[in-house]
């Protein structure tokens, strides 16, 4: 086997590539989650603002 090295390298690269693809998919999901959390945070802030805003009106 003269060019056996190439095949061995290929096999281990396949392993590495699979793990990396997996990490990539998980990263994609994480970015979705991040976006969703940011939206929720914004919405929660908005609700807080709405709750606080009418109160001075009642007093005044």
């Amino acid at each position, binding site marked *: 086997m003269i060019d*056996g090295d190439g095949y061995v390298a290929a096999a281990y690269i396949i392993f590495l590539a699979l793990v990396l693809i997996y990490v990539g998919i998980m990263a994609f999901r994480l970015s979705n989650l991040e976006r969703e959390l940011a939206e929720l945070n914004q919405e929660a802030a908005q609700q807080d603002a709405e709750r606080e805003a009418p109160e001075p009106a009642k007093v005044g």
Partner: protein
Amino acid sequence: MTLYGKGLRSLSIATAVVLTGAFLLIAFYAPEDADQGIIQKIFYIHVAMAIVALCGFTAGGVMGFMHLRTHDRRWDLRSYVAIHLSLILAVGVLLTGAVWAKGSWGSWWVWDEPMLVSFLIVFLLYATYQPLRFSIEDPERQSRYASVFAVVAGAFVPINFAAVRMADSFIHPRTLGTTTGGMPGEMMLTFLVTLVGVALLFVTLWKYEMAAKHARGQVKALRRRITGERASVVGGRSAAPQVHV
């Protein structure tokens, strides 16, 4: 409340250390095989992935069985993640096996390597797991049917191996690699370290994905709480089990 991310950091570090050590051992410590030369070094990752994938499929079956017994939806999620990861490993086994076959025998596929052939059959079976889940709309029924599938397929895996190996042993008494008998000590040690490394990787990724699914469920629950029930119909049907918090 269980947090799946707990212990994930130390697990990741352990995985990185053991896998790196395994690759170093494979590259510099393990001797070259007398018959096959350097190409035999594919053996370590190929067989380690195969064994871990098999254990993963079996574990998925056991978890599916637990789901059927306890009606606890978390067992279905665990089973789903285990099968999903094992399927990825099975792809790895098929690809590295094909490379090995090409390097050793000059063709991308050989029918007389029982490990490879059984993995093709097992892969074809488990490849239907996701479509099956996807085509059942009711989430409760989806989990139940998927667990039945997981149990049946888990029982199928060892039988299939036995049958394929038996068919093969008529033509070839024993081909390479798949038995560890008569292996020099250095090879054995390298193989065991690789096996532990891949197993650790499996557990780490399993916990990682469980944590991700769990986090997603938490975010969904949070969204329901903040925006009210009107926003609870987000997204379409899913093949993955949903986490309910």
